[in-house]
């Protein structure tokens, strides 16, 4: 059934009115060479039952493994009430409604979300969310280039300790806008970005410096020093942060003398399940001074003619439907449903609950690192403080597969293999234990790992994993 309400007569009447013979004629101006007759690689349509079976089979392949992978998405506890409330009919929509002000409940919720995010980040304003953490960083880079009018260069310093996928996404989005992304190497013993590595760029015209906190390795960066250095260079500071970590660490608005200028990141840890990688949501905050350069929608509080509080989309002169080609926001949608869940999540756990989750995640990861590095063949790679992730290296002559495959067979996700993105970190694993992992879970991981390593080292031959 096509979900189009017009009858054949309706369509004919419209065509007659504008004087064309058929719908196809409306597309005449598109040249033949730009048209395609079909879509390669898209399979034949399936009926509802067929799709249902296919999706069921695929979702069963996910299983319920014990997860020790973080690497940008985190398995935190989500109170049952969060999605019970978020999926109520009144909330259950992916979009801000087109006549936004007619949905005061939705706008109020987004307003609360903005307030919570701005407070968590110690920034003046937040937008109503973006697609995900990676595209939020790309948008932050574009915003910084627009906003830093003192800088004539379009150069952005990007530490390689920023999530590899965020860097790839940013490259994809900005590469054709003559923006130069300069990668900054990390310190091999600390796993952090040093002022020494930035110093090579001192005195040159830099539009912005990106600072991750914690960085992709879970390591804490010297955010105060780097922020002040960047500001001395006339650059804006873009913070990419884990929102849960901000319940514990110094928020970007308080970094250095003057704080970060733009803050962005992935909102998934705030009440959104891992869910095979999405949908998640990106967030962005900034200062009042730069708010007109911020992309995305912003909800403001106002009063109606009877002086009652109401909510409205505000600062819309930034947006494409008013500003046209000069718009500073070309994103007029947000991840409404994910933001709904995040807002309810934050409201339920409260500031103290968020802090507890952060503290316990930190403690659990420390416990995990201790349990795993108790084995003489496993070492912690970086010596700097971490939040809730750490890099471990396996000092074995065998490749990682011989260790990881049997762990997978035990229904355990042991960590993220860093060799894929960092060739110098071959045989290294990024591990994470959130507050949702118990002591038993950690002991189970350590137990399996010790047995597997022992078999490898004593047998002196590659392990054949039992599947």
């Amino acid at each position, binding site marked *: 059934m096509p979900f189009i309400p017009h009858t054949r007569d309706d369509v004919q009447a419209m065509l007659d009115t504008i004087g064309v013979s058929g719908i196809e004629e409306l597309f005449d101006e598109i040249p033949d060479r730009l048209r395609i007759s079909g879509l390669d690689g898209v399979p034949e349509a399936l009926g509802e039952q067929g799709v249902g079976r296919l999706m069921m089979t695929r979702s069963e392949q996910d299983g319920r493994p014990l997860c020790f992978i973080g690497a940008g998405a985190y398995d935190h506890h989500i109170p049952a009430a969060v999605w019970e409330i978020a999926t109520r009919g009144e909330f259950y929509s992916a979009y801000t409604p087109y006549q936004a002000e007619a949905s005061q409940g939705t706008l109020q919720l987004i307003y609360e979300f903005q307030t919570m995010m701005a407070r968590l980040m110690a920034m003046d304003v937040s937008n109503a969310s973006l697609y995900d953490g990676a595209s939020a960083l790309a948008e932050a880079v574009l915003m910084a280039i627009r906003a830093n*009018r*003192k800088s004539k260069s379009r150069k952005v310093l990007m530490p390689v300790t920023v999530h590899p996928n965020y860097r790839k996404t940013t490259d994809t989005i900005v590469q054709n806008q003559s923006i130069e992304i300069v990668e900054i190497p990390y310190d091999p013993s600390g796993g952090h970005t040093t002022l020494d590595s930035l110093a090579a760029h001192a005195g040159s015209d830099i539009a912005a410096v990106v600072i991750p906190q914690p960085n992709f390795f879970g390591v804490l960066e010297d955010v105060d020093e780097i922020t002040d250095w960047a500001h001395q260079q006339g650059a804006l500071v873009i913070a990419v942060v884990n929102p849960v970590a901000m319940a514990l660490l110094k928020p970007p608005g308080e970094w250095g003398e003057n704080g970060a200028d733009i803050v962005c990141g992935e909102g998934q840890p705030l009440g959104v399940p891992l869910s095979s990688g999405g949908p998640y949501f990106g967030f962005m905050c900034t200062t009042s001074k730069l708010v*007109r350069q911020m992309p995305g929608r912003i909800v403001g509080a106002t009063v109606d003619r009877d002086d009652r509080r109401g909510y409205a989309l505000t600062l819309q*002169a*930034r947006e494409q439907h*008013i*500003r046209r080609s*000069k718009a500073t926001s070309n994103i007029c949608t947000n991840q409404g449903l994910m933001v709904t869940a995040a807002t309810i999540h934050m409201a339920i756990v409260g500031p103290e609950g968020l802090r507890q989750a952060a503290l316990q995640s930190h403690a659990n990861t420390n416990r995990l690192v201790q349990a795993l590095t108790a084995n003489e063949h496993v070492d912690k790679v970086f010596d700097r403080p971490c939040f809730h992730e750490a890099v471990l290296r396996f000092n074995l002559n065998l490749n990682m597969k011989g260790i990881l495959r049997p762990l997978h067979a035990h229904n355990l996700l042991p960590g993220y293999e860093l060799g894929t993105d960092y060739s110098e970190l071959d045989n290294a694993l990024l591990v994470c234990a959130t507050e949702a992992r118990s002591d038993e879970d950690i002991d189970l991981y350590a137990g399996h790992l010790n047995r597997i390593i022992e078999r490898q080292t004593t047998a002196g031959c590659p392990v054949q994993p039992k599947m």
Partner: protein
Amino acid sequence: MSNVPTELKYTRSHEWLRTNDDGTVTVGITDHAQEQLGDMVYVEVPEVGQEVVANDACAVVESVKAASDVYAPVGGEVVEINESLADNPDAVNRDAFGDGWIMKLQLGDAGQLDALLDAAEYDAFVASEA
């Protein structure tokens, strides 16, 4: 007929220009322009020291209805901006030719002024647009 002071120069994009004794020129938008745009909520001014070319979009006036670029009537270096507009954008509505000025430019070649309209020409232009 709207308010069009005779001592000023004008553009077809509704900016006004006043030549000052010190070789600078003051630029703003006309009373007619502010009337069309409605209540101002924000004026984005250029940076002092910025070099602008004639017809460059170098400022933005944002009203409750629209955001419009302000074009430089002549080329030159921005030597001063009206910082009070940050807190009082409505000065553009109240006094477009006075307190509502946007920027001062160091005029390079005075010959550039010849291309601009005088008050009578601007008035006629506005009438023709209506």
